[in-house]
């Protein structure tokens, strides 16, 4: 493959990224190929040394934050048909509530998931509080000479401590799982935005 063809394919593969990013990347690869040619490689060898277009695109995609991809996607690429505008305005009472509802549902689902995580941590914190309260109360009772009450309070404190230790690992695992799922979904959305255009 010659340099021109490589850069053209790369440009097509990167469609969906901001324009200035694409230009900068292409200039970078172009310079790399030229430098190899200058060193004595043939054009085809210099291009082959960079790797396949598909590999390069996948790597760039993996390194680009989702927000950049989305920002570029919502920029209109061609002038909008006036009829589409009329329809959009007339249909506003219809599509806007639906769109808003969809976003609200997605947001609500996400909040629900995090609420579970927060409530798990809340249980953990309250167990710690029970531990501290138990120890304090045991100390008070011991000072006042109520040995039985002091011992039972101490038992409660120890139970809370044990439960808190278990709870900590449950909370940690649950939080990690949700973060992992969020990342997976983000990568999935990225692929929906750009994946189909790669070579």
């Amino acid at each position, binding site marked *: 493959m010659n340099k021109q063809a490589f850069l053209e394919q790369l440009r097509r593969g990167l469609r969906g990224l901001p324009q200035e990013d694409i230009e900068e*990347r292409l*200039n*970078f*690869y172009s*310079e*790399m190929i*030229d*430098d*190899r040619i*200058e*060193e004595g490689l043939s054009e085809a060898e210099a291009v082959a040394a*960079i*790797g396949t277009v598909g590999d*390069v695109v996948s*790597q*760039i995609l993996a*390194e680009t934050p989702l927000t950049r991809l989305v920002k570029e996607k919502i920029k209109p690429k061609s002038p909008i048909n006036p009829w589409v505008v009329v329809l959009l305005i007339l249909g506003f009472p219809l599509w806007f509530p639906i769109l808003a509802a969809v976003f609200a549902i997605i947001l609500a689902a996400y909040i629900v998931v995090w609420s579970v995580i927060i409530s798990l941590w809340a249980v953990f914190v309250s167990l710690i509080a029970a531990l501290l309260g138990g120890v304090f109360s045991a100390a008070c009772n011991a000072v006042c000479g109520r040995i039985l009450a002091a011992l039972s309070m101490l038992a409660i404190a120890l139970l809370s401590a044990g439960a808190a230790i278990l709870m900590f690992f449950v909370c940690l695992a649950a939080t990690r799982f949700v973060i992992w799922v969020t990342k997976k979904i983000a990568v999935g959305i990225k692929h929906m935005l750009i994946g189909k255009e790669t070579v």
Partner: protein
Amino acid sequence: MDIQLKRGLLDVCVLAAIKDKDSYGYQIIKDMKPYLSLSESTLYTILKRLETAGMLTVRSAEHDGRLRKYYHITDSGIARIEEFKEDWKEILSIYRFVVKEEENE
């Protein structure tokens, strides 16, 4: 290797490659080749990251009728290399401790 560790190492290697003299993309790859192989895409990302962090500056200069980008290390880039050296002194001493433990087993 741990991805975070590798990222940090690569950053410092690239800074070291431009420390004595301004350099350009292909030269950096060639200089690093004996130690670690680096793809163009990875280098691009590292250079971008270092530029954003203010550890290097970029200028375009004409070379043989075309433009080439040259990378110049800043004071904070040099400081990063020094920091790296200090960190690794510590890591090396921990390494010696770990290896010694294993030998005694």
